[in-house]
């Protein structure tokens, strides 16, 4: 069905009986429409039993690839609400982690901490449910890390693949541009001679 153009004229007013007809017809139309929905497929989800399918870019609770992290503090600096706190001691090449805390009472899931990371080690996950009776439970330490779940692994791999593909495309475009340029240069050189 195509969409109509907006009318530019007011609708002519109806008389007494026209008004009565309009009332009955428009109410019946609305009822019929509502009634038809009885036989359509449901769009609602029974939430606690059925969990929604979240997209791979979903911005939920963070997870950290602790082995990669170099304690550079860039994510904490980027955070608008200063909810990231990290602390580690360096022993040569090794880092001894003390804490990498996120205060989810403050966090607004804006993802600004993810972009500046030089090692791509902080990510946002699909976990969103966070219920507690105690406020201290909302301060989470990302160091209690027991390896990536399968889902998180997939997310990272997908992101890396996308990045590699983008880089390859960029490289290709640059190469093509480089190929084109000498050709144009030659053409430009020829012009003055002509």
């Amino acid at each position, binding site marked *: 069905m195509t969409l109509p153009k907006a009318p530019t004229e007011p609708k002519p007013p109806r008389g007494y009986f026209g008004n009565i007809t309009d*009332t009955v017809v428009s109410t019946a139309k609305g009822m019929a429409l509502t009634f038809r929905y009885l036989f359509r497929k449901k769009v609602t989800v029974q939430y606690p039993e059925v969990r929604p399918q979240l997209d791979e*870019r979903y911005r939920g609770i963070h997870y950290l690839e602790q082995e990669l992290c170099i304690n550079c503090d860039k994510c904490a600096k980027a955070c608008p609400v200063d909810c990231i706190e990290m602390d580690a001691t360096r022993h040569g090449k090794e880092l001894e982690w003390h804490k990498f805390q996120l205060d989810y009472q403050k966090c*607004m899931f804006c*993802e600004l901490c993810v972009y500046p990371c030089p090692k791509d080690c902080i990510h946002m996950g699909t976990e969103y449910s966070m219920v507690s009776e105690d406020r201290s439970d909302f301060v989470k330490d990302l160091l209690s890390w027991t390896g990536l779940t399968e889902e998180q692994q997939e997310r990272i791999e997908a992101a890396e693949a996308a990045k590699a593909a983008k880089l390859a495309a960029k490289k290709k475009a640059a190469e093509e541009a480089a190929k084109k340029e000498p050709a144009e240069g030659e053409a430009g050189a020829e012009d003055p001679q002509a």
Partner: protein
Amino acid sequence: MNSHPAARFDDKPGREVELDVATQDCMIHMGPQHPATHGVMRVLLKADGEILAGAQTHLGYLHRCAEKIGESVDWLQYLPYTDRYDYLAAMNNNLGYSLAVESLLGVEVPERAQYLRVIVAELNRIASHLFAVGTYGLDLGAFTPLFTALRDREEVLELFEKICGARLTYSYVRPGGVMNDAPEGWLASVAAFLDGFEKTWHEYWTLIAENKIFIERTANIGVLSAEQALAWGCSGPMLRGSGIDWDLRRDQPYLIYDRLEFDVIQGVGYRGQVGDCFDRTFVRMFEMVESVRILRQCLEQIPDGEVLHEEVGAVIRPAPGESYVAIENPRGELGHYCVSDGTKIAVRVRVRSPSFCNMSVAEHLMPGAMLGDAAAIIGSVDIVVGETDR
């Protein structure tokens, strides 16, 4: 009707019909927790019997110091806060702020990013208008439109979830471009949504605009004349509903709106007078149609390429200067007046929010209306209190 600014709450307007029964003025608090105020806002109504003699708006319940925060965090760090003033159209807020920062930086974002921005902004306009029209029905006692509207809005939110990972506070459009490129197949799913929406739009029209009860509740109610709308600095559907042909997308074109073909919808007094509550809903209904047109054109034209300007990094230091950039939010003109002194923190981020100005006239539409119409008038302004208070 009271339009002179000096005519205030305490001035009782002359009544056309003198009643036999002596009545006493009655003060009624509408809000702060009233479903029809769409947030925490209080309207003090002065009722003379069933007829309103005046109204006074009390704001500030949702004041979160957005402008003060803007002066204390980095330019980029302020971005998530912009989501929070008009939480029903956060993409547009991001866009307005990003454009203001870019105007001080002096960068134009890559073309693909401009198209993506227009696509998300228009999708958000559809979602926001759906919510406005749906809840307006709810204010007037019609329950069904809200459910159907939220179903379609949900589809838009799912599209946003796919592109940026958030459903309400996106932070997707950022100074310098957009956060991510659209994932594979996203543009196709936008097209699929539009196909479905073209069908369901007719349902809203049947349920809302053709419903006799809705017409009776809105036509000839809360008439805002063109002069009044101009004088009170209204914008968006409020201004256009009063028959003024003004749309920033066309008249001060930003991004790539000058390449797109669309109509500016004006109120024509479709069921009553020009500028009544029905006309404002009418404008919103047909603006969704125009948004679909714009989206279709964008999907055809969108080029490939980068989505983030190379020179805009995590720390933004715009040139010193002052710049006002306004965009057409679903509710009207959203302007950011940014003042920079060349450091990484703003001197001033002024937010000119559309609901704030539109709401300032609403109390002047009340005198003379019936008590039950107060909800109809406030609902037709389509305020988001996060935005009036900021």
